[in-house]
C-alpha cells in the first residue's frame, strides 16, 4: 500500500493574532451568561482568595449597613457602585472561565455518548459493543466513517480522515494512519471516511479529553509563581492604602474640630470623614483594576494556548515560556521541510544530464520514500520526464528500497539500474566488475560538504552520476529567527546530520547555533548546560527517546502524534503537532506577563486622578484652599466621589476584553517594548481617569442629591 505523502506545513505559520483568539469585542451576551456565576462568586469563602476584591466586598457590606442606618441618595448610589465593583471583578473571572466551560461542555458530550466496537483480539474481525468508559489499555476497537473514536490510542490498521474539531476546534479534517508519525488518535474525535483499527493506550477515565476538560475548566487552577508574587505586591499596596485611609481619620477629626464654623456634610462631620466616603476613597486607591482582572488574565492566557491547540499542563509552564532564552528546534519538520528533496543531478564526465535523469527516475520508481518520490518529481519538473508507473513497463523487475540494501532500482531487459547511498551503490558497482573513478568520490564529498545528501546512480558496472538531495528550509524561518534574536532568544538547531551538513543548514536558516550528530544524551546534556548558565530552555519532541530531554527542559512541548512517553514528559502538548508553534507559545507566555504588568501599572497610575477628585471633595469645606486641587472642576463633593467610584468600577468592565485578549505584543527588544507599554499604560493610566471621571461627573451632577 503506498504511503500517502502527508502535507508537511511548508512554511512557518503566521502567528494568529486575531481570529478565534479574539474575545476582543465586548460581547454583552457572554457577560450576561456569566452573570449568575459572577454573583455566586460574591461568597466571601471563595472571594477571600482575592484580597483586593475581598476588601472591596467588606467595604460594600459596611457601607450598606451605614446606608440602611442613615439613608441618602448619595450613600445608596455609592453602595450600589461598590457592589457593582465586586460583581464586575467576578464577572471578569466568570467570563474567562465561561469560555473554557463552554468548551468543556462540548468535550464532555463527546465523551459520554460514545459507544465502542471492541474487537475480540487484534487479529479477529468479530466485535462487541461496549461503552467507551469500559475500554481498557491495549483493547482494539474498530471505527468507521461517521463514528466517534471511543478513546485515545494508536491506529494499527488503516487510514482515515478524522474530524478533530471537538478538541482542536479546527473543522478541516486530518489524516490519521497506521505507522509513521500520525498514528495517534484522540477519543471524542470523529472518523469522516474509511475505517481504522485503533489500539487503546489510555487508562479508563484518564483520557486526553478528561485532562482537557479539567484544564479548560480551570476548576482547580493553581496560581502561578509570578501571579503569587504579583498578588503579594497588590496585597501590600492594599495594606498601605488601608493604613493611609484609616489613619487619616484622627487627622480629619482634628481638622474639623479646629474649624468649628464649618457645617457637617455628607463627606465630613464631627466624627471625621463619613464611613461611606472613607470606604469610597479606600476602594478607589487599592489596586482594584488589576486585582479584578488578575485571575482572568491567567485563565485567558491558558485559553489562548488552547485556542492555538496547545494544552499547557500547568500555568507555570506558560509563564516559563515567556522567560525562555534558548529554543531547541529539531531540524527536520521544524526548520526544514520534513524530507530532503532532489535538487540537482550531477553526471560524471561522459554522461549527459538527461541520461542521468532518466536513469535516476527509472531507478526511483520503486522507491516509495519521500526522497525517492522527490527524485521522480524533480526529473519531471526539470527534464520533462513523464512519471512512469511500475506496471507499464513489461519485464521489469523492480528492486524496492529497503533500509538494509539502501538501494532501489530496476532490472529491465538486461539493463540494471540502481540508485542509493554512495557506499551501497559503489559496492554494487564493484561487485559487478566496475571501478568507480575518483571523480565520483569527489562529487560525493562535495555534496556532503555542502550539507546535501549524495545518492549515487549507476548502471551495471559504471557510475552515471550523483543526485544531490537537499534540505529545504521552510519559508519565513529566517525572519522568525531574527525576531527571536530581537526578543533575546537564542535558537539552537538539533540534528542528526554531521557537523558540516548541520552548519550549512544552520547558516541558511539563520539559527544561532546547532548541535550536530545529536543523540538523546547530547540533547539532554545541552539542556543541562544551558540551564546551568541560568537560561530557560524550550524544546519540542515526539519520540520516546526525547522524553528525558522534554522532562528536563523548562518548556517541553510534546507533539500530539508523539508517543505517550513524550506526552507524559513534556508540560505542553501541541494538538496540531506543529513544532514551529513553540515560537508562538513563547509569545503567548510573554503576552501574559506583559498584560499583567501593563494593567498593574495602569491601576496604580489611576490613583493620582482619584486623589485629585476625592481629597478636595472631603476637605475643601474645612480648608477652602484645597479646592485648588479640584483640577477637574467637578461639580460637587458628592458627584466627585461618586464619579471616582463609578469610574473605578467601569474601568474593570472596559478592560475585561483587554485582559482576555492580552495586550498587543510585537516581538522587539525589551527597551522598545517597555517604552511603548509605559507610554500606553503608564501615561495613559495617569490621563485616562482625569478624562473619565470628568465625563462621568458631567452626567451624574444632574442626579438628585449631587449638589
Amino acid at each position, binding site marked *: 500500500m503506498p504511503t500517502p505523502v502527508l502535507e508537511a506545513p511548508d512554511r512557518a505559520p503566521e502567528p494568529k493574532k486575531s481570529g478565534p483568539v479574539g474575545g476582543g469585542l465586548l460581547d454583552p451576551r457572554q457577560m450576561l451568561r456569566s452573570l449568575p456565576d459572577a454573583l455566586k462568586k460574591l461568597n466571601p469563602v471563595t472571594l477571600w482568595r482575592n484580597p483586593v476584591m475581598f476588601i472591596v466586598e467588606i467595604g460594600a457590606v459596611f457601607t450598606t449597613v451605614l446606608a440602611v442606618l442613615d439613608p441618602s441618595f448619595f450613600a445608596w448610589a455609592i453602595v450600589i457602585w461598590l457592589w457593582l465593583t465586586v460583581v464586575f471583578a467576578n464577572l471578569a473571572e466568570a467570563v474567562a472561565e465561561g469560555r473554557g466551560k463552554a468548551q468543556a461542555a462540548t468535550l464532555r458530550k463527546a465523551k459520554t455518548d460514545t459507544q465502542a466496537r471492541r474487537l475480540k483480539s487484534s487479529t479477529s474481525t468479530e466485535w462487541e459493543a461496549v461503552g467507551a468508559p469500559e475500554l481498557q489499555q491495549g483493547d482494539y476497537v474498530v471505527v468507521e466513517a461517521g463514528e466517534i473514536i471511543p478513546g485515545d490510542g494508536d491506529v494499527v490498521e488503516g487510514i482515515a480522515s478524522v474530524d478533530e474539531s471537538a478538541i482542536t476546534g479546527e473543522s478541516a479534517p486530518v489524516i490519521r494512519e497506521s505507522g509513521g508519525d500520525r498514528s495517534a488518535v484522540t477519543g471524542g474525535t470523529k472518523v469522516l471516511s474509511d475505517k481504522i483499527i485503533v489500539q487503546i493506550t489510555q487508562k479508563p477515565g484518564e483520557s486526553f479529553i478528561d485532562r482537557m476538560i479539567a484544564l479548560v475548566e480551570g476548576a482547580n487552577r493553581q496560581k502561578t509563581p*509570578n501571579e503569587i508574587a504579583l498578588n503579594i505586591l497588590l496585597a501590600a499596596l492594599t495594606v498601605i492604602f488601608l493604613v493611609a485611609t484609616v489613619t487619616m481619620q484622627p487627622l480629619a477629626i482634628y481638622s474639623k474640630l479646629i474649624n468649628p464654623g464649618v457645617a457637617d456634610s455628607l463627606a465630613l462631620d464631627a466624627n471625621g470623614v463619613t464611613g461611606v466616603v472613607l470606604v469610597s476613597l479606600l476602594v478607589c486607591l487599592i489596586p482594584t483594576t488589576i486585582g479584578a482582572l488578575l485571575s482572568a488574565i491567567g485563565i485567558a492566557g491558558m485559553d489562548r494556548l488552547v485556542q492555538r491547540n496547545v494544552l499547557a499542563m500547568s500555568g507555570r509552564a506558560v509563564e516559563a515560556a515567556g522567560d525562555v532564552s534558548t529554543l531547541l528546534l529539531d531540524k527536520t519538520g521544524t526548520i526544514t521541510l520534513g524530507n530532503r528533496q532532489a535538487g540537482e543531478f550531477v553526471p560524471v564526465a561522459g554522461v549527459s544530464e538527461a541520461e542521468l535523469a532518466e536513469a535516476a527516475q527509472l531507478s526511483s520508481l520503486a522507491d516509495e520514500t519521500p526522497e525517492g518520490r522527490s527524485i521522480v518529481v524533480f526529473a519531471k519538473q526539470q527534464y520533462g520526464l513523464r512519471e512512469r508507473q511500475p506496471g507499464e513497463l513489461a519485464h521489469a523487475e523492480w528492486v524496492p528500497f529497503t533500509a538494509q540494501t539502501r538501494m532501489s532500482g530496476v532490472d529491465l531487459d538486461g539493463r540494471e539500474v540502481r540508485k542509493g547511498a554512495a557506499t551501497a551503490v559503489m559496492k554494487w558497482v564493484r561487485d559487478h566488475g566496475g571501478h568507480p573513478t575518483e571523480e565520483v568520490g569527489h562529487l560525493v564529498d562535495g555534496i556532503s560538504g555542502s550539507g546535501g545528501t549524495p545518492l549515487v546512480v549507476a548502471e551495471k558496472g559504471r557510475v552515471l552520476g550523483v543526485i544531490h538531495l537537499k534540505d529545504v528550509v521552510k519559508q519565513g524561518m529566517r525572519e522568525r529567527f531574527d525576531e527571536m534574536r530581537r526578543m533575546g532568544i537564542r535558537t539552537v538547531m538539533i540534528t542528526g546530520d554531521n557537523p558540516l551538513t548541520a552548519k550549512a543548514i544552520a547558516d541558511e536558516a539563520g539559527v544561532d547555533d546547532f548541535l550536530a550528530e545529536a543523540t538523546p544524551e547530547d540533547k539532554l546534556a545541552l539542556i543541562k548546560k544551558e540551564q546551568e548558565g541560568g537560561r530557560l530552555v524550550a524544546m519540542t519532541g515526539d519520540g520516546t527517546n526525547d522524553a528525558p530531554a522534554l522532562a528536563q527542559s523548562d518548556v517541553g512541548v510534546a507533539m500530539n502524534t508523539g508517543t505517550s512517553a513524550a506526552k507524559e514528559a513534556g508540560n505542553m502538548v501541541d494538538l496540531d503537532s506543529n513544532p514551529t508553534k513553540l515560537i508562538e507559545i513563547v509569545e503567548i507566555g510573554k503576552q501574559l506577563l506583559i498584560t499583567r504588568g501593563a494593567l498593574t501599572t495602569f491601576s496604580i497610575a489611576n490613583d493620582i486622578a482619584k486623589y485629585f477628585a476625592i481629597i478636595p471633595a472631603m476637605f475643601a469645606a474645612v480648608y477652602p484652599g484645597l479646592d485648588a486641587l479640584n483640577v477637574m472642576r467637578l461639580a460637587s463633593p458628592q458627584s466627585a466621589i461618586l464619579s471616582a467610584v463609578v469610574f473605578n468600577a467601569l474601568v474593570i468592565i472596559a478592560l475585561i476584553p483587554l485582559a482576555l485578549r492580552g495586550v498587543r505584543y510585537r516581538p522587539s527588544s525589551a527597551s522598545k517594548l517597555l517604552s511603548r507599554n509605559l507610554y500606553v499604560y503608564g501615561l495613559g493610566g495617569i490621563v485616562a481617569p482625569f478624562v473619565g471621571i470628568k465625563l462621568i461627573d458631567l452626567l451624574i451632577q444632574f442626579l438628585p442629591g449631587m449638589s
Partner: protein
Amino acid sequence: MSTTAAGLIFIVSLIAALALLHKPFGDYMYRVYSGARHNRLERGVYRLLGVRADTEQSWPVYARSLLAFSVISILVVYGIQRLQDKLPLSLGMKPVTDHIAWNTAISFVTNTNWQAYSGESTMGHLTQMAALAVQNFVSAAVGMAVAIALVRGFARRKSGTIGNFWVDLVRGTIRILLPIAFVGALVLVSGGLIQNFSGVHEVTTLTGGAQSITGGPVASQEVIKELGTNGGGFYNVNSAHPFENATSWTNWFEIFLILVIPFSLPRTFGKMVGQVRQGYAIVAVMGVIALTSVLLTNLFELGGHATVPQAVGAAMEGKEVRFGVANSATFASATTLTSTGAVDSFHDSYTPFGGMMTLFNMMLGEVAPGGVGAGLYGMLILAVITVFVAGLMVGRTPEYLGKKIGAREIKLASLYFLVTPALVLIGTASAMGSAEQRAGMLNSGPHGLSEVLYAFTSASNNNGSAFGGLTVNTPWYDVALGLCMVFGRFLPIILVLALAGSLAAQAPVPEGAGTLPTHRPQFVGMVVGVTIILVALTFLPALALGPIAEGLS
C-alpha cells in the same frame, strides 16, 4: 552677588565635589569591603570580640550578630546616661531621666539621633564621647554593612552566605569613617569649630544678660555627625550653633560630609556587581530626586516670602544670618534627603511648601541619597519593586541584575516598603487622636498637624531632625517615637538581610536582548517615578491636611 546666584554656586560646587570623589571613594570602599586581608588593628579587635573574621555568615547569622550588637549598644548607651553622675567628665550633670535615656539610646543606636534632650544641659563630656559619638561611628558602619550585604546578595552566585557582620562593621569604622572623621575634624577646627574639654563658661552678653556656654569636643563629634548621617548635635540648636557650624564655608563642608558616603556607595555597588553602569543608574536616580528637591525647597523658601516680609526680615525666621535663606534651604534638603537630621535652621519656620519638602524627603524613605548604607539599600528595594512591575511589561518574569524577583523577594521588598509608612501614619494618627498629645503642639491648625507628622516621619525614617515646635520630651512621645525608631530601623534591616540571603542563593540569569536594561535613562526615570508616586499616594491625605492645607490657604 544675588542670593540666587550665590545659592546656585553653592549647589553646583557641591555637585562638582561629589562627582569628583564619587569614583575614587566608591572604588576605595569597594576594596575595603571586598579585600581578604585584615590589618593589625582589625585583628586585634576581632580577638577582643572573639569573632572568627574569616568565616562567612548566612543571612540569619548576620542578622543575629547585628541585632545582638545593637541591643548591647542600646544597653551601654542607656547605662552611661543613667550613671553619668558617677562617671568622670560629667560636668556635674544629673543622671538622664529614664524615658529620655531610653529614647536617646535608641535614637543613637538606630542612626536616628532624635534628640529629646538639650545636649549642653543634659549630657556630660563622657556621655557625649563614649556613648553618643561611638554610636555615631558604629551605627553608621552598621548601615553600610547592611547595604554591602544586600549588594553581595546581588553579586554572589548560589551562595549560602552574605559576608561577615563583624568584619563589615569593623572595616567600615576603621578604614572608612575614622580616617575621614580625623581629617574632617581638623578641617572643621580650622574653620572655627571648637575642640576642648572645658566646662561651662558664664558670660555676660552685650545687652548685659547672663549666658552659660559649654565648651567640649565639638569638632570631632560634628564631623561624624554629618559623615555618618547621624545628626545628633552637641548643642541643642545643632548646626545652627556657631561652635558647631561657624561659617557659610563650614556649612558647605558639613553638607558635603553628609552626602559624600551616600553618593559614593552606588559606585561601590556597581563595582561589586561587576557593572559600574548599574551604579551610575542608581546614583542618577538619587541625583535626580535630590536635585529636584533641593531646587524646589530653595524655590519655595526664596520665593515664598514676598517683598514685604523680606524687607522686615521675616524671611529669615528660623534661619541663621550667616547662612542666609538659600544655603539653609540646601542644608535642610540634604539633611532630610539623607537620614542625618542635623539642622542649621528651623524647619518649623519654613514656608508651608518648603517645610513639606523636608517632610516629603523623609517620606521617600530617605533614599536620595539616604543615610549611609540605608539609602543604598532603600533605593535598591525600590529598584526591585520597579523591576517587578516593569519587568512584567517586557514579557519576562522580573529579574534585577540577573536575580529573579519571585514571590519571596517581592514579599520581603513589599514588607520593607510597608514598615515605615505604617509607623509614620499610625504614630501620627495615635498622637492626633489624643487631646493630651495634641497639647504638645506649639501651633494649632494644619501647622500643628505638620509638627506631629514631622516628628513621626523623622523618627520612623531614622532621620532625627525635628520640625521644632512640638514638645516631645514627655514620656508618651519618648516611648512612641522610640518604638518608631527601633522598628523603623531594625525591621527593614532584617527584611533587607533576608532578601540578600534569598538573592545570594540564586544562580544569576544571563543578560540578553529580552532582559530589561536597568542602566538606561528609561529605567532611571521609572525608579524616580515609582518612588515619588508610591510615596505621594501613601502620604497625600496626611500632607493635604497639614502643609498643603496651610500652603493653599
